[in-house]
Structure formats: structure tokens, C-alpha cells
């Protein structure tokens, strides 16, 4: 009921402000005791020593217990009590140093017996934890007293870092907060070691298609992306080099439930981790090869109500927009291209002049469409509210978030509706933890999400394609009479497509509810517990099509000088279609029983688990993933660790009787720093743990390769054979294994892909935890990889399906190194991570290749093959004398391909690797500094050894055949080959009307070749954030914990080895945005 009211209110975003105001009013002022009422009396013992007392708070102004207080240069150390109070014997003029694992170190010079409250600032690199340990090991200096056993979020549970043997990398709140973006994936780039999040679009894709049963066969949402209509359409997520294109991307787990939820505001998330090793992912069973992204939304916190409100807004700038040629250059080069094709020129000198001097804007337009239809600085605004608190009995958290992301198209006030691209999202997430009694805890979570997308009636994808292809001189924007310009070739006007093509809306609705019951059976035997959790969630996406079409007009000058308007294009009335585009329902049940106990030096734990996830997507049959698993761990003296896990896991998309497989993993660890001998030898090392895991894991990606591919089936449908004298074709066809022409043989042996995975690593900290190092090596041998067999002869009369054939090796090194320290009041950190990834095809059932360069086996999995380019033909004689693609007569200015086997023709036997097989290196480097309330941080992210294959006909060539005319050309055309510039040419000769191919419809210069391979290395200043926390002494009277004013930027600056095009996103994809964001954050 409350939620429905909430959603209703959210419909009117103005109500959100009211709601927040109400919540603000309802918050009790902090329970921090006033400084005039210190817990302990201030003593005065002698002239130089006395007692100083005070209170330490967190950023909310709430008392903070367990803060270590020390006088500089003296060995007086006390800790704050649960009320945040301390009193310490101190000399006048001595600096007090306050430290705590989660907070930056504070220095304060007390001037009196009683001092102002001290407000600590959260450390950048740590996760705030609900219950920090009351005390921690004493260190001789005060820098980063990191406790060893800070809990970390792993699959379905939290565990202590000490006994964790796997490979994990985590991003926590501060980094998430600093990212001005629509979803949390933006915050992971460059921050999670080994995870490559490549952006492919600057905007999310919007559902438009209606849901209909014919979509079903082979067109259902599949397990490739984890199951379900994914709401990540902007990123390719690759873990340790495994491509999403082979269904090997990681599984997203949000608050313990497998869910493809990415479009969540970064501020509502507490931490995101990636689990990479076989052991810690094993209970994913059939999907355990894929790794897991563990997302934990904000957690309930014990204590008085803490309220955290953030309002921020940013402006966006599109990056990497191509530079179109002005009309006169376009006209000149088109003439050249036509001449190269032996065609008469299209433009005269008078035309050139008219274009160049803009003397005839209607007859000779020169319209920069990018300036015409794109506006500057669209906004991204976000509003977040987080409230949490509670008692030992019950704790809660509420997150409300609103996001409004506007697109980059111009709009007109003439419309009553918005035609721009836009996305608005309302998110509500609540969690309540209840301790019913000493033994029984209940957690309830409800998350609701409403997301409304808006775009022009034509759709922004079509619009960007048109923008890419329409030349500057195609038609004037508007005619003198105010109508949209156009002509017989261009019957739609780009500006009209933006502002007068109506609009499309899509509505996404999500509700998830989790319940988790945990019951301790200590009464039965100490350490025994059972847990049950369940999740039900629904998602639906509906779209509204309100598009329309506006005709265009051409101004024609008659011979007598009279003018006349010709009309082209259709006027289509506004649509009013409403349809469901996707629909999903998920159910997840998990039952666990566990036992954790310590017997002296021996620590044991064991767990049995059953879970089942059922996904119902659109019209499809359910997908059921079922696991019967268990794991066990033993450690001796917290020094030697041995763990194991096994999972009997099934997926119902395999043939009945062949749905279940056994997966297992084990690991060992040795905390060498706890050995006495080690402490003696290398005292500088605080901590060193060696660990290794091995596992046999699985990946049930069969859906990616077909629909029930083990099933011999016949399917019907058109086309029909028109039997009978009336040719009615009243009999539909029925073909084996799919529609005629695309049939597949049943793969009765289909099974999951498997992998032998090894991960070995070490965790080390030294110099009193100033330096923290994590290193991992992994060796993953994938086998039973789905692929086509090599001897797939056509004699069989039907296509062979993908089979479990391939063997692939993935190897890599990962390194994470952090240095933290402080100098006086300056706290700072530098943290870097890098991962080198490489793969190799061990076996792929490759058929005999007579030439060594044709062989794929032994090369990287995604090795590019193509012709070897030897520059451009410089002379007609060379062109005529050189081997050619069959049927093509090359000319000077065309790419010269190498005839590797010397048979006089360029054919498949001349395909060779065209990119060096080097391990891909992905890296990120972040640094931050905190001084007197100022916080500055930056993130650099980049790729090295990356290969970029740039062959985009519209951009690289231009002048493609289009509407009886020729498409736009861009700056690369200026570097085309002409005899005068010879070897300095940067592009082949121009041709007109290549129809996506350069040269009379023949794909000569565009075929895959090394000519288009470039160095893809790049790095970006991904994020820079600057914040100022107002001094607490200004705020405390208003009972406000913290007011933080901040600015931050995403994608601030990019360096790329290959220039001219953004290394990740290029048109016609929605361009990447630079976001400059500012806002205010209030905590109380």
C-alpha cells in the first residue's frame, strides 16, 4: 500500500521533493551528546598534563565508537565508547590523532578541556561497515589500521577476508558516488581488476518491438546474458577475456539473487565485487565458469536514523563525433569519385563557388547537420535519498532515487510533448532486518523500479544513421516559406525527423521482493544454522508509439525565374500504438543449512545448499536452473586453510536425463605471515597469504546456439509451395529443424561447456598496511566449447549445429597495488590495477590447411584473419600486374593485397592473421587526496595491446549509394589516394556509389584486411571528483552532520593511439558523453 502510494507520487516528480522534505522533518536530530556534556569529567592534574574529553562522530554527526585516539608523540591511546565519547590524558599543545579503519585519519589540536565534536571522513578505499570492530591491533604509527577480518560480500553471503581463498576485486561506495552516470557499470570501468567493461553505446537501447509469438523460435531472450531481457545495452562485459559473444559474460547477482539488473543508480549501491576464481563461484553450478558480479545495495545500519540526501546535475557533451566535409569539399571530391568510376562529374565550378560562399542557401545548401539537430549540454540530473537506522531488534534502510537523463537532440517548443531522447528512472529500495529473537533473523527487501524512456518517433538509432549519411548539400533545412526542405531523393528532412516525427515512449517496470529467514540451531548444536530465502520479481516493458511523418518541400526555380514548390514524402498521421515489448517473471528459492564452529585451533564450517531459479520470459517455456550444492572449510590456527565445494547442477534446456552435471572445486591457503619464523625474517610485511583454487566449472550457454537444439523437430510457416491450380499455397510448409534454408540438425549430445580453472594468488600488505598488494595468475582451460565441427559436410543435407568440441586456454596475470598514507592532515592514496589476458585455441576440429598462415589452431581465440595489405597501388602498371580478387580489376589507389601462396589470385588461401597476437592489457589508476574537508580523486582507465579494426564505410569512404544519390563524406576522404600524394595517402582512392563497397558494388577495398587494423591503445581520464565538506563547527548547531559540495566529471579526456574516432563508441551508435556534474550532499 505504501509503495503504491509512493509510486503514485513519483508519477509527479514534484511530489518527490515534498516526500523528501517530510522525511527530513521526521528524522530525529542526532543523538550525539552536546559537547558541553562530555562523558567523562575533565581533570587537571598538573600544568602540562590534563584530561581532554570529547566526542567523535561519523559524517552523519552520529557517535562513532571504537575510534582510536592518541596524543601525538605520546603513547596515550584510548578508544571512543558506544556514545562516541573519549577522554584522554594529554598535554596542552599536543595534537590528538583520531583513526579508525573506515575513516581517514584526523588530527586535532585541542585548545581547552572540552573540545568540539570531531567528525571523521570516510576513507575512499574502504567499505563502510555496520559494526566495525570495537578495537583493533595497536600499531606504532597511525596510518591505516586495516582490520584483517573485515567482511566481504561473496556469493550469497558475507565472509571474512582472511579465510577467503578466491580472487575478488571490489569497488565501494566512494567510487560509486563519484560516478555521474545512469547505471553502476559506468563506475566499474578501470576499477575492477580483470573485468573489461567496454562501452559500445552512449545510450541504452529502448524496447520498441511488440511481443508476438512468432518471435519465439530462436529469438527468445536467452541464457547468454544470464537470462532475461537485459537492461545493459551499453556495455560489453568481459571477465578475464571471455567474450559475451560466446555466452561467457559474468552473472550479475544483486543482493543475493541472480538478476540482470544494471540500471541502478550508483548511489544506491554499497559495493560491487567481481568474483573470478572457480571456488568462490562454484555454487553457480551450471554457470560457474562465468564469474559473478556481486552487487550489494545499501545496507541497514544500526543506530539512530541517518539520512543522506544528494542532489546533483550534470551537463553532457558528445565525444568522437565525426567531422563532415563542407559542401564545397564534398562536391569537389564527389566529382573526383565519379571520375574514378568513369562517370561524368556532378558539379560545376559555379556549384563549387555557390557552396563555398553560401551565395545560394536554398539551391546550394551547406548544412552542418550535426550543428543543426544536436544541441549542446543536455543534462543528467539525479536525486538520491538514503535513510537507515534501527536498533538491535530491527534495522532498516530506504533508498529513493530519481534520475533524469536527457539526450542530445534539439527540441522545439511547438510540440506539446518531448521528442528528445530521454530516460527517467525512479527507484525505491528498502531492506528491513529483524532479529525476532536470539536465534531467528528475518530480512525483507523490496525493490521497485520505474523507468521511462523517450525518443523521437523515428527512433534515435535511425536518426543517427541518417545523420551519418546525409551530406551537407542534400537539401536546405527550411525553405523560405518555413516548410521543411527536401527533394525527390530525400523525402524526409533530418530536422523534421528530430522534432516533427512524434515520439516513442517505453515504460519499464520492475518489482523484486526478497525474504530471507535465518535460524540459528545453536540449541541443537552450537554453530548450526539454517537459512531460507526466496525472491519473486516481475518485469515488464511496454512501449507507446506516437510517431508521425512530415512531408518535405523543394523550392524549384522555373525557367522563367518563377518559383514553384514541389512536395515530396508522405504525411503520416500520428500513430497511437501501445504494445508490450517484453515481460519476465523470476522466482528464486534457496535453502541453506550450515555449520560454523571453532574448536581451539581448529575451525570448521560446512554448508549444504539447494536453490532453483525459474525465469519465465515473454511467451517462452520456463528456464530452470537448479543446484544441489555444498561446501566445507577447515582451518588450523587461522594459518592453514583448506576448502572444497561441489555442486550437482541442472539446467532444463538440456535433454531430459542429461540436464544435471557435477561441478567441484577446492582451494588451499597459507597465511605465511602468521608463522613465527616469517615475522622474524620479514617484519616489514604485515600480512602475506598465499592461496590457490582449482575447479571444474560449467557454462550452460546452449541457448546462445539454438533453441532446444537437442530436439529433433519440425517447424511450420511460410514460405509455402503453391500447390493446386489456384496457387493458393493453402498448405504451409513444415521443415525439419527450422525454416527451409536455415535448418539445423538436432544435437542430441549437447551439454554445457566446461572448464578446468586454476587461480593462484597472494594477498600482501606491508609497511603497516600502507601498501596492499594482490596478485593473481589464472589458467583456465575451457573444453566442450560449443562450436561448429570441422568436417561439417553438406552431404548430410542440413546444417550441423554447434557441438561441444572446442578446447581453449585462457591465461592471465592480475595485479592490484595500493599505497595509502598521510602527511599531517593530508590523507592520500594511489591505487593501480592491471590485467594481462591472453587466449589460445588448443583444439577446434580444424580441417587440413595447406598453408600455415591459414591455420587458426594455436592462435588467440578471437584472432582477426584477413588479407595482408601492402599499402596502395601507386601505379596502374603495378595494379594491372598484381594478383587480384577474382573478377575485380584493381586500379592505382586501391589496396594492394599480398598473394601469400603465390597462385596469382587473392582468395581464401591468402587470409592470414592481421593483428599481432599480444595479450590484452587493461588497467586503471586512481588516486585521491583528502585535506581539511577537501576531497579530490581521479581515475585513469585504459587498454594496451588493443587492436582496433576500423572499417566503417560511411565514415572511411563516403559517397555510398543512397537514395539515387551519394552519402555524406567525412574528413578521412581528404586523405584519399590521388597520384599527387602517392604513398602519403591515408585512404584508398575515392569511388562513388560503392553501395557499402568501394568500387562499383564490388567489395574490394572493404574486405577484411590489415589496411584497416590500427593500434587500439587508449586511455581516458575516466573520472575526476572534487568535493568540499563544510566544517562541522558550522553545521552542528543545525544538527547537520555534513554538507558536501562536489563537482565531478566522467570521460574528461581521452588519448587514443588511432585518432579521429572514439576508441570505443562510434557513429551511428549513440556517442559517448563527457559529463560535468555538480551537486550537494547533506548527511544528518
Amino acid at each position, binding site marked *: 500500500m505504501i509503495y503504491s502510494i509512493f509510486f503514485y507520487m513519483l508519477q509527479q516528480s514534484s511530489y518527490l521533493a515534498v516526500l523528501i522534505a517530510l522525511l527530513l522533518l521526521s528524522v530525529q536530530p542526532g543523538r550525539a551528546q552536546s559537547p558541553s556534556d562530555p562523558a567523562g569529567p575533565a581533570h587537571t592534574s598538573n600544568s602540562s598534563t590534563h584530561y581532554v574529553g570529547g566526542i567523535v562522530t561519523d559524517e552523519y554527526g552520529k557517535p562513532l565508537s571504537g575510534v582510536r585516539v592518541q596524543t601525538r608523540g605520546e603513547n596515550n591511546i584510548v578508544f571512543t565508547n558506544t556514545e562516541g565519547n573519549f577522554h584522554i590524558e594529554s598535554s596542552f599543545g599536543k595534537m590528538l590523532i583520531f583513526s579508525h579503519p573506515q575513516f581517514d585519519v584526523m588530527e586535532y589540536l585541542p585548545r581547552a578541556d572540552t573540545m568540539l565534536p570531531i567528525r571523521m571522513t570516510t576513507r575512499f578505499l574502504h567499505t563502510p561497515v555496520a559494526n566495525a570492530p570495537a578495537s583493533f591491533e595497536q600499531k606504532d604509527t597511525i596510518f591505516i589500521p586495516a582490520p584483517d577480518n573485515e567482511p566481504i560480500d561473496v556469493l550469497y553471503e558475507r565472509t571474512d577476508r582472511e579465510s577467503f581463498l578466491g580472487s575478488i576485486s571490489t569497488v565501494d561506495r566512494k567510487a560509486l558516488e563519484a560516478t555521474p552516470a545512469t547505471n553502476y557499470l559506468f563506475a566499474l570501468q578501470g576499477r575492477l581488476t580483470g573485468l573489461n567493461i567496454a562501452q559500445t553505446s552512449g545510450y541504452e537501447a529502448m524496447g520498441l518491438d511488440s511481443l508476438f*509469438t512468432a518471435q*519465439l*523460435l530462436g529469438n527468445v531472450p536467452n541464457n547468454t546474458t544470464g537470462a532475461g531481457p537485459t537492461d545493459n545495452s551499453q556495455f560489453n562485459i568481459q571477465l578475464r577475456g571471455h567474450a559475451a559473444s560466446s555466452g561467457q559474460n559474468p552473472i550479475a547477482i544483486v543482493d543475493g539473487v541472480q538478476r540482470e539488473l544494471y540500471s541502478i543508480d550508483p548511489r544506491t549501491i554499497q559495493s560491487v565485487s567481481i568474483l573470478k576464481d572457480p571456488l568462490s563461484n562454484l555454487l553457480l553450478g551450471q554457470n560457474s565458469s562465468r564469474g559473478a558480479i556481486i552487487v550489494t545495495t545499501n545496507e541497514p545500519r544500526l543506530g539512530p536514523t541517518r539520512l543522506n540526501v544528494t542532489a546533483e546535475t550534470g551537463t553532457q557533451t558528445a565525444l568522437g563525433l565525426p567531422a563532415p566535409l563542407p559542401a564545397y569539399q564534398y562536391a569537389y571530391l564527389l566529382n573526383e569519385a565519379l571520375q574514378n568510376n568513369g*562517370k561524368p562529374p556532378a558539379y560545376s565550378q559555379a556549384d563549387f563557388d555557390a557552396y563555398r560562399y553560401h551565395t545560394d542557401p536554398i539551391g546550394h545548401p551547406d548544412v552542418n547537420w550535426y550543428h543543426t539537430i544536436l544541441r549542446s549540454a543536455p543534462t543528467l540530473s539525479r536525486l538520491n535519498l538514503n535513510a537507515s537506522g534501527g536498533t538491535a531488534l530491527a534495522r532498516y534502510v530506504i533508498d529513493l532515487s530519481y534520475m533524469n537523463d536527457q539526450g542530445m537532440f534539439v527540441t522545439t517548443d511547438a510540440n506539446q510533448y518531448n521528442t528528445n531522447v530521454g530516460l527517467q528512472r525512479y527507484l525505491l529500495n528498502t531492506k528491513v532486518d529483524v532479529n525476532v529473537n536470539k*536465534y*531467528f533473523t528475518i530480512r525483507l527487501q523490496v525493490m521497485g523500479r520505474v523507468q521511462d524512456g523517450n525518443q523521437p518517433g523515428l527512433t534515435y538509432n535511425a536518426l543517427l544513421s541518417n545523420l551519418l549519411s546525409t551530406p551537407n548539400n542534400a537539401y536546405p533545412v527550411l525553405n523560405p516559406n518555413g516548410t521543411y526542405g527536401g527533394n525527390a531523393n530525400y523525402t524526409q528532412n533530418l530536422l523534421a525527423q528530430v522534432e516533427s516525427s512524434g515520439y516513442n515512449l517505453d515504460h519499464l517496470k520492475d518489482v523484486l521482493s526478497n525474504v530471507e*529467514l535465518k*535460524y540459528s540451531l545453536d540449541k541443537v548444536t552450537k554453530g548450526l544454522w539454517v537459512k*531460507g530465502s526466496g525472491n519473486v520479481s516481475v518485469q515488464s516493458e511496454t512501449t507507446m508509439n506516437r510517431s508521425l511523418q512530415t512531408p518535405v518541400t523543394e523550392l524549384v526555380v522555373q525557367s522563367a525565374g518563377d518559383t514553384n514548390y514541389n512536395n515530396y514524402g508522405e504525411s503520416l498521421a500520428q500513430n497511437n500504438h501501445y504494445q508490450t515489448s517484453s515481460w519476465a517473471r523470476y522466482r528464486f528459492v534457496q*535453502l541453506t543449512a550450515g555449520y560454523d564452529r571453532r574448536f581451539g585451533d581448529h575451525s570448521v564450517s560446512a554448508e549444504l545448499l539447494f536453490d*532453483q531459479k*525459474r525465469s519465465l520470459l515473454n511467451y517462452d*517455456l*520456463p528456464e530452470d536452473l537448479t543446484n544441489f550444492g555444498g561446501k566445507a572449510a577447515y582451518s588450523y590456527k587461522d594459518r592453514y586453510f583448506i576448502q572444497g565445494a561441489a555442486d550437482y547442477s541442472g539446467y*532444463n534446456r538440456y535433454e531430459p536425463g542429461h540436464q544435471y552435471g557435477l561441478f567441484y572445486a577446492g582451494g588451499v591457503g597459507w597465511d605465511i605471515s602468521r608463522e613465527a619464523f616469517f615475522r622474524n625474517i620479514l617484519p616489514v610485511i604485515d600480512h602475506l597469504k598465499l592461496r590457490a583454487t582449482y575447479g571444474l566449472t560449467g557454462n550452460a550457454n546452449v541457448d546462445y546456439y539454438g533453441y*532446444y537444439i537437442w*530436439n*529433433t*523437430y*519440425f*517447424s*511450420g510457416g511460410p514460405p*509455402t*509451395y*503453391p*500447390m*493446386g*491450380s489456384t*496457387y493458393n499455397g493453402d*498448405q*504451409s*510448409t*513444415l*521443415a*525439419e529443424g527450422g525454416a*527451409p534454408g536455415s*535448418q539445423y*540438425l*538436432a*544435437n*542430441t*549430445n549437447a551439454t554445457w561447456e566446461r572448464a578446468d580453472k586454476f587461480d593462484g594468488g597472494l594477498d600482501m600488505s606491508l609497511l603497516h598496511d600502507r601498501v596492499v598488494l594482490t596478485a593473481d595468475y589464472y589458467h583456465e582451460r575451457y573444453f566442450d566449447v560449443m562450436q561448429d565441427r570441422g*568436417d561439417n*559436410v*553438406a*552431404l*548430410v*543435407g*542440413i546444417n*550441423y549445429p554447434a*557441438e561441444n568440441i572446442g578446447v581453449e586456454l585462457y591465461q592471465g596475470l592480475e595485479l592490484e597495488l595500493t599505497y595509502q598514507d598521510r602527511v599531517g592532515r593530508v590523507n592520500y592514496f594511489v591505487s593501480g590495477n592491471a590485467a594481462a589476458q591472453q587466449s589460445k585455441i588448443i583444439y577446434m576440429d580444424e*580441417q*587440413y590447411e595447406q598453408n600455415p598462415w591459414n591455420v587458426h589452431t594455436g592462435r588467440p581465440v578471437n584472432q582477426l584473419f584477413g588479407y595482408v595489405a601492402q599499402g596502395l597501388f601507386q601505379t596502374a602498371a603495378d595494379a594491372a600486374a598484381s594478383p587480384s580478387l*577474382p*573478377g*575485380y580489376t584493381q586500379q592505382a589507389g586501391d589496396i594492394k593485397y599480398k598473394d601469400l601462396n603465390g597462385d596469382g589470385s587473392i*582468395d*581464401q588461401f591468402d587470409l592470414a592473421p592481421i593483428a599481432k597476437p599480444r595479450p590484452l592489457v587493461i588497467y586503471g589508476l586512481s588516486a585521491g587526496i583528502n585535506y581539511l574537508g577537501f576531497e579530490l580523486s581521479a581515475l585513469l582507465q585504459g587498454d594496451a595491446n588493443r587492436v582496433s579494426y576500423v572499417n566503417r564505410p560511411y565514415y572511411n569512404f563516403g559517397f555510398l549509394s543512397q537514395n539515387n544519390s551519394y552519402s555524406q563524406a567525412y574528413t578521412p576522404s581528404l586523405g584519399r589516394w590521388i597520384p599527387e600524394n602517392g604513398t602519403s595517402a591515408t585512404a584508398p582512392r575515392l569511388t562513388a556509389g560503392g553501395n557499402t563497397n568501394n568500387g562499383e*558494388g*564490388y567489395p574490394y577495398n572493404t574486405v577484411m584486411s590489415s589496411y584497416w587494423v590500427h593500434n587500439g591503445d587508449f586511455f581516458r581520464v575516466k573520472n575526476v571528483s572534487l568535493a568540499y565538506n563544510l566544517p562541522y563547527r558550522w553545521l552542528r548547531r543545525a544538527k547537520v552532520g555534513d554538507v558536501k559540495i562536489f563537482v565531478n566529471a566522467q570521460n574528461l579526456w581521452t588519448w587514443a593511439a588511432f585518432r579521429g574516432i572514439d576508441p570505443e563508441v562510434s557513429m551511428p551508435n549513440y556517442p559517448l558523453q563527457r559529463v560535468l556534474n555538480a551537486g550537494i550532499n547533506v548527511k544528518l
Partner: protein
Amino acid sequence: MKLRYHTIFALAGITTVLVSCQKQYEPVPVEQTTLAYTFNTKDSAGVLALEYLSTCYLETFTNGHNRVGNDYLDAASDDAMSASLTLSDVQEIATGAYSAATPNADDDWTHMYAAIRDNTIFINEIYRVPLNELLPNGQPALPSYRSEARFLRALAYLQLVKRYGGVPLLGDTVFTITSNAQVPRNSFSDCINYIVSECTDIQDSLRTVAMITGATYGRITQGAALALKTEALMLAASPLYNGGNIAPSNPLTGYTSYDVTRWQLAAQAAQAVISSGIYSLMPNFKDVFITQAQPVGANTESIYWMQNGAGTSVETFNSPIGYSSEGALGYTSPTQNLVDAFPTDSGYAITATNSGYDATNPYNNRDPRLLSTIFCNGVSLWLNRYVQTYDGGLDKPGGTVVQTKTGYYMRKFMGPFETVAGSPQFGSTIHDWIFCRYAGIMLDYAEATNEFSGPSSAVYNALFQLRQRAGIFAGPNGYFGLPMNMDQATMRAAIQNERRCEMAFEEQRYFDIRRWQIAAAAYNTAPLVGMDIQSQPNQPLTYNRVPVLTTSFKAPSMYLYPIPYSEVVKNPQMQQNPGW
């Protein structure tokens, strides 16, 4: 208290298990019809089985109209060329630009083995269906349907054999994922024998033409089986395989020795079609291609064909480009070589003295089939105006648009749109693709008989009938312009020329020049020729033969297609054809 929570947990667990065990959904999607359901043992109407058979037709038949990259296959012979501005598929074939690794566009290997699989499944499974349909003669219809699939399978094999020589014969095997599909080729002789024996086996169980009704129109008949047998035996007896084997000792590429009785078998098979009395020549040549077959329509000549129904696609694709208002695309450019093959209306070759041929009016007094087959400048009426293929004419305007390269467009297969009342536009016309027609069987008969026993009167008679129907004058001696007392070789040439004229664009010439082993001569002797027609005001038109395309044929390897490279490399048992 403790007990209660235990109970709650236990109940929750049991409920979950129970719910998840409920049978709510089918284990495989219902839209995925199983084999058992397609060939349903309870479906006496055989609904799905017959739908499946309709797919077999669709998969086996290919519509020859503008089939190869929008061109007729015969545009890859010396009869025509593509008008395409870019390198066309047929030009690649005609210039020999293909290899095992980059097969030509007519490579049918995969397609035909797919058809063979489809048909074999039907043949193997149809017995499960308790079909109670009866033929008009009271016999069960099931054997007839099964025989249709066997016919289609035999046809698919013949399509393979005439391209590749001997190919693997799979019999009734349907491969599964676990089968070893690496089978060797069968000899040419085995393949022919298999096709012939299949035809022999099925011919009695098929429907007769008389049994065909409106609903069963388009199904394979007994006559079709006889005709297919003739086609197979004609191929087998042809010089390329019978005596002219390009690898004389290789049984895959043909017979290892010459045997004249193969011509006798072919002649007998053709005679069987003729003497069955089912078929006869239609009175009007043009109507053959646009008329439905007996007993539904008036076409007594069609034997088996692909059902395409009515439309205007042939007209729009191939009409001269000047009819652009009707969307005419002018794809096909017949050569002067073909035009010159047509005799005059008195039946004489144009080179013969007193033939009546006038080089200044080259289209006058010609075999009427010429203008039924080809649009010629100034004499072909189309949509109420005469075709203009002179330089600068409406149908050959110059510039960069697609237009005839030879001065001719193809006319065959089109509806009677010479003059049209009202607005000049094409009407919907039947464009079934006729694989085999009676005229072809008569030519087969003439050819085989001439080869086996010389130019007997029966041979002459077959040609007389064709020429008479064509509209050639019988002449004073009733020989329709044919020389009397020809020897075997002269008669062979006459039959070949007659076949070229009668069967142009019907995917005959392309294969005929191969099986007759004259392709090397046809492609390599001289460039193909077109007619350049110049029109000056107040002057008669001038005609000049101009070369239009230099074709190339690598003999002898190109007489057979290469087995696709991938098939050879993936199957150690697969033997490549010689020279590839």
C-alpha cells in the same frame, strides 16, 4: 517455540519442492512439432505429412526465372549475357571465374543434398500415416505421395550428376549428428542407374495426368517419371560421358567406354513418353510458357514444372528498360549468336543462299520463334510501341543505366502484352517454371535416334512437327527447310540448332553445350557478338555485329563443376573432379 520454527521451515521446504515438481509446462516447446506428430499414426488425413511434402517440392525445385544472380542460367552460355553494370554471377561463369574454393553461383551441392534429405525423410516416414485418401481410380493415395518424393529425390540427383558427374548416393539414409557422413562418390554409371531405377519403380504408383484435379494440380505424374528417366538416359548417352569422358578411365566422370546402346535406351525412353499419348505440342509456341497444364489448362506440353503462379516479375525483370514506367529492368541481353541461330521463315539457315535473309532487315522473314524469344529493334511490338534498341533509342539510351549490351532483350516466357488496351501495363501472367516439356522430349528422341540408328524418317518427323508448330513454311517438299538425306553428323547439327532455338533460356543450352562437349568451342572460339544498330535521320538503319563479351572455358576440367573445396577437404573420401 523451537518446534514451530522447525515446522515452518520444513513446510516451506516441502511446499517449494512440491511446487517445483508440478507438471506445469511441456518439456519441449509445442511449436516444435516432432517427427511422430508430423507423420502421425492417428492422422488419416495426413495434414502435416502433406505439408511436409509441400516443403519437399519447395526445396527440390528451383525457379529458373532470373535464377542466377537475377539472370537466366543461359545468360552464362553463348546465348545471352547479363546486362548488369557490375560483375554478374553469370558472367563469372561464362568467363571461367570460379574455382573449387569459390564455386560458381550455380553450385547446387548443398541445396540438392538438403532436398535429398528432406525427401528421404518423407519416403521413410510416410508409411506411419494411415492416410485414407484414395486416388480417382480407387487406389490408396499414399504410394503416390511417396513416389512424388522419390521423383523429387531422383531429380535432385540428376541436378547433381549433370553438374558434378558421379556423386555420393545416400539411398534411404538420413544422417544424424552421430553418423559418419564421410562417404565416397558413386560412379557416374551408378548414379544414372539409380535415377533410372527409381523412375521405373515409381512410375506406376504416381497419378496419371487424367487423375489430376484442381487440388492436386502441380503434383508429379506418371508422365513426369517417364520424362525424368529420359532426361537421365539422355545425359548418360551424351558424348561427355559416353565416349568423351574427360578422364577416360575415371568412372566418376562418365563411362569408361563408349556404348551406342545407351542412345538406344534414351530413344526408347523418349519413345515411351511420346507413345504414351498423354502429351502433344500446343498450337502456339508463345502460349506454352504462360498456360496451365492439362487437364486444368490447355497446355498439353508441360510434363513437370515448378508452381510459381501468376505475376509480372518476368516481365518487369526482363522487359526493355524503356518501359520504365512499368518498372522494366532489362536484365537479359540475348546475343547475336543466338539470333543468328534462328532460321528464316522458310526454315533455311540465314547463311544459306535463297534463305530469304536480308542483312539490312535482319528480323524480317524469320522463324517466328525469334520474335517470340527475343525483342528485336523496330519489329517487336511491346506495350503498344516498337522496341528501340538502336543507339540512343528508348531501350538503349546510353549513359550509365542498366541496358542491353547486345541490342536485344529477352521476350520468352512473357504474357501477350504487345498491344494493351487502356494504360500500357503488364497483367498478371502464369510463370510456372517448366523443367521438362514435350518438345524437349521430341528433341531428345530425335537426337538419340539419330545417334543410335541415323537420321531416319522418325528423326525428320520430330523436327517437322516442331517446325510446323513454330510457323515455319513446310516448303514445296514438306521438309520445312531442312535438307533432305542428311547424314548423321549433319542431322546432329540440325537437331542441336533446333534445340537451341526451341529451348532457349530454358536451362538447356547451358548444359547441352557441355554434354555435347562443344562448350570449349562455344566459349573460346570468338567473343560473343551483339548488334550495334545506328539510326540516322532519313537513313535506313545500319547493322554492325560487335563483340560484347570474351568468354573463357578451361577444357576439359570445366565440363564438370568442381566439388566444393570444403567438401573435399572435410571428407577424405571425397574425390575431386579432374583439373580442379
